[in-house]
C-alpha cells in the first residue's frame, strides 16, 4: 500500500467514523430530546407564586421523565400581543393563560386558538373536583364545547388600614354605600386620603367604576350596559355612576394618582398614605411579604347586590398544541387536590379545587374564604366584559371623569357614541 493510498484509506475511515459518530450523536440527541410543554403565562408579583409554578413543573417532570415544562412569563399586554402574533403560526404555546369569559379569553376561543376540552373534562372528571363557579366559564363560549381549565378564581374587595380607620373614628366596616362615603368623608376630615389608585394603568381606577356601576344600576342593568345592550347615554344610573366616580376622584383619592401605577399605589397604601385599596385576594400574599397582615381588614365593596366582584383565570390548551394529551395531563396534575393543597396560598388565597381543605390560614385569607362562601354570583371587571376596543374608550372616559376633565353625561355619551360606531 503506497503512502498516498494509505492516507486516502485512512482519510475515508476517518470520514466514515466522523459521519458515524455524528449520526449516532444525532440519534442519541433525538432519543434524549425532552418533550416540551410550553406554557405562556403572566409575571406574578409574588415571589412565592413564581416559585410555586417552577416547583409544580419540576414535580411533574420528575413524575414524567422526558417531559420538560417551560413557563414563559410576560406582562399583561405583552402576553396578549405575543398570543396575537403567534396566532395562525406553529410558534405558539401548548398552554396559554387568559381570563375566563367572553371578553378576553372568548376572543381566542372564537378565533379557534383554543382546543375543546370536553373529552378531558370527562376522562379526568374535572367537573367533580373543580369549584362549580370557577368551572362554569368553560361552557360559556357558545360553541357547545368546554374551553380552558380554571387556574385561579379571584375576588376583589376593599382592603383597609385598621389604624387609619381608628384614627378617623371609624369603628365598623361599611356595609352600605352611604356608610362607605361617610367613612371616606371621616377619613378626609382626619386628613387621610381614602383610596390609593394608580391611574397610569387604566384598569386600576376602572375597578372603582365597575363597582359604582353595580351599586348605581344593580346587577341586571349593569350586565346589560357591559353587554352593550342598554344605551349608556339614556340609562340614568350610568351617568350617576360616572358622577359618583368624579366625586370620589375629586374628594377621596390620594393625589396625584394619574401619574403613578398600581405597584406604586400599593407601596403608598403600605406606607399608610391612604386608608383603602380596591384589590384582589392575590394581594394578601403581597401584603404578607412586606407588612403585618394584622394591620389590615377587608370588606366587600358595598354594592347592595348579591354579587361579588371578581373573575376567573384559565389555562387554555392551544388548538395547535403538539401533545394535547400531555398538556391536559399537566393541567390535571396542576389542579389536583394534592398539588392545590400543598401550594394553597402561593398564587391566591383560595383554590379552584373544591376538595382543598383550608387550615392554618392567614387572617385575611380566612376573611376571603368567608366572602367566597357568602356570594353565589359574581360580576367581572369591565375590561373582561367589553371587547378590547371598547375597553380602551371605557378607560379614557373613566380617567377623564375621575380627573374632572369630562362631565358625567359627556362620559356616558362618549362611550355610547363609541359603541354606536363599532360597526
Amino acid at each position, binding site marked *: 500500500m503506497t503512502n498516498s493510498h494509505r492516507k486516502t484509506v485512512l482519510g475515508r475511515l476517518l470520514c466514515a467514523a466522523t459521519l458515524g459518530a455524528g449520526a449516532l450523536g444525532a440519534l442519541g440527541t433525538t432519543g434524549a430530546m425532552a418533550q416540551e410543554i410550553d406554557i405562556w403565562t403572566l409575571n406574578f408579583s409574588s415571589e412565592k407564586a413564581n416559585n410555586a409554578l417552577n416547583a409544580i413543573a419540576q414535580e411533574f417532570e420528575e413524575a414524567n421523565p422526558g417531559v420538560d415544562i417551560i413557563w414563559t412569563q410576560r406582562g399583561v399586554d405583552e402576553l*396578549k400581543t405575543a*398570543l396575537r402574533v403567534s396566532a395562525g403560526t406553529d410558534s405558539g404555546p401548548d398552554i396559554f393563560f387568559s381570563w375566563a369569559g367572553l371578553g378576553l379569553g372568548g376572543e381566542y376561543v372564537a*378565533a379557534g386558538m383554543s382546543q375543546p376540552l370536553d373529552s378531558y373534562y370527562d376522562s379526568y372528571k374535572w367537573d367533580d373536583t373543580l369549584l362549580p363557579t370557577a368551572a362554569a366559564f368553560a361552557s360559556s363560549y357558545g360553541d357547545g364545547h368546554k374551553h380552558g381549565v380554571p387556574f385561579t378564581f379571584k375576588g376583589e374587595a376593599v382592603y383597609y388600614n385598621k389604624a387609619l380607620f381608628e384614627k378617623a373614628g371609624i369603628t365598623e366596616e361599611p356595609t352600605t354605600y352611604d356608610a362607605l362615603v361617610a367613612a371616606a368623608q371621616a377619613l378626609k376630615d382626619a386628613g387621610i386620603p381614602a383610596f390609593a389608585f394608580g391611574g*397610569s394603568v387604566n384598569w386600576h381606577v376602572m375597578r372603582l367604576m365597575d363597582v359604582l356601576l353595580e351599586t348605581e344600576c344593580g346587577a341586571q342593568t349593569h350586565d346589560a350596559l357591559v353587554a352593550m345592550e342598554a344605551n349608556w347615554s339614556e340609562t340614568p344610573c350610568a351617568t350617576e355612576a360616572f358622577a359618583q366616580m368624579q366625586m370620589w376622584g375629586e374628594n377621596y383619592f390620594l393625589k396625584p*394618582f394619574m*401619574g403613578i401605577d398600581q405597584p406604586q399605589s400599593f407601596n*403608598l397604601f403600605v406606607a399608610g398614605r391612604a386608608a383603602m385599596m380596591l384589590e384582589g385576594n392575590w394581594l394578601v400574599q403581597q401584603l404578607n411579604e412586606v407588612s403585618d397582615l394584622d394591620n389590615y381588614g377587608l370588606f366587600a365593596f358595598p354594592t347592595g347586590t348579591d354579587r361579588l366582584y371578581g373573575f376567573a383565570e384559565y389555562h387554555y390548551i392551544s388548538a395547535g398544541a403538539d401533545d394535547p394529551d400531555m398538556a391536559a395531563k399537566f393541567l390535571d396534575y396542576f389542579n389536583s387536590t394534592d398539588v392545590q393543597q400543598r401550594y394553597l396560598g402561593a398564587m391566591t388565597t383560595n383554590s379552584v379545587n373544591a376538595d382543598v381543605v383550608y387550615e392554618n390560614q392567614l387572617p385575611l385569607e380566612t376573611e376571603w374564604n368567608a366572602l367566597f362562601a357568602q356570594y353565589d354570583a359574581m360580576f367581572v371587571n369591565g375590561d373582561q366584559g367589553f371587547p378590547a376596543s371598547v375597553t380602551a374608550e371605557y378607560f379614557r372616559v373613566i380617567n377623564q371623569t375621575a380627573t374632572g376633565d369630562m362631565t358625567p353625561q359627556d362620559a356616558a355619551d362618549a362611550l355610547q*357614541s363609541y359603541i354606536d360606531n363599532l*360597526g
Partner: protein
Amino acid sequence: MTRLFDRMANAPWLFLAPALAVYAVFAIWPMIDVTLVSFQRWNGIDPTRDFVGLANYTYIFTQDPVFWTAFRNTLIWTALSLVFPPLAGLLLALALNQPLFGRATLRAVFYLPVIIAPIAVATMWRWMYDPFFGLFAQLLTNLGIGIPDFLGDPDLALYSVFIAYFWQQVGFSMVLFLAGLQSVDASLVEASQIDGAGRWNRFKHVTLPAITPTMTIVLVLSLIQSLKAFDIVYGLTGGGPSQSTQMLALWAFSQSMQVFDFGRGGAISVVLLVITVGVVIPYLRWSQRREEQLK
C-alpha cells in the same frame, strides 16, 4: 468578451441583490401589507380579513375620539423637536468646539444619552418624575414648591415626556453640528476677526453659512425622528393620562396590538407614512441635487 461584458454589467445587481432582498422583505413588503390591511377589517387572529374600502379612514378621520389628539400631539412634538434639540445641540457644539479643558470628556458626556435605549431613558425619567418619591418631587418639596403631577396632568404630561426626549436627543444634534463646525475655514474666521468682526458677526457671517448644510441635515433628521416618536412615550405614559400624550405612531400601535383592530391601526400607519414620505422625498431630492452640485 461579450459574455464578460454582460457579466460586468450585471455585477452591480448581483452585489445589490442581498441588500435589496432584505429591504424588500423588511421595508417594502410591510409598507404594502400595512396599506392593504388599512382597507380591511381584521382582529389579528381570525383567518379571514374583510375588505371594507375606505371605512377605516372614514372612521379615524371622523369618529375616532383620539386620532386628532394624536395628530395634534405629533405636530406639537415635531415643532418642539425642530426647535429645542437642534438649538441646544448647536450651542453645545459651539461651546465644545472651543479649546476647553476636558472637552473630549464633555462631548462624550453629552452624547451618552443618545446611545441609551429610549425605553431605558423612559424608565429613568419615570423614576425622576414620580410625584411621591422622585427626584423632582424631592427637589420641589425642599424648595417649598407644590409638586405637579408631571406625567399625570393631561396639560403637562406631553411636555414632561418631551423633556426626557430632549435630554436624549440633544447629543445627536450636537455631534452633527460639531462635525459641521470642522468644515468652517479657520482662515476666514481669523480674517473676519482681523477685520474687526465681533463674536456675533463672526458667527453670523462666517460660521453660520458654513454650517447651513449641516443644519439642514440636523433639521430633516430631527423631523423624521420626531415623527417616529414611540418608545419614550410608550415607556413614560403609554399615551395617557386619558390618551392626552397619544402620538400617531403610538396610536397606530395601540389600535393594532392592544385594541387588536389592525385595519384602523393600519390606516393610522398609512397616514403617518404619507406624512413621513412627504418629508423624506424632498430631503432625498435636495441631498441628490447637492451631491450633483458638489461633483
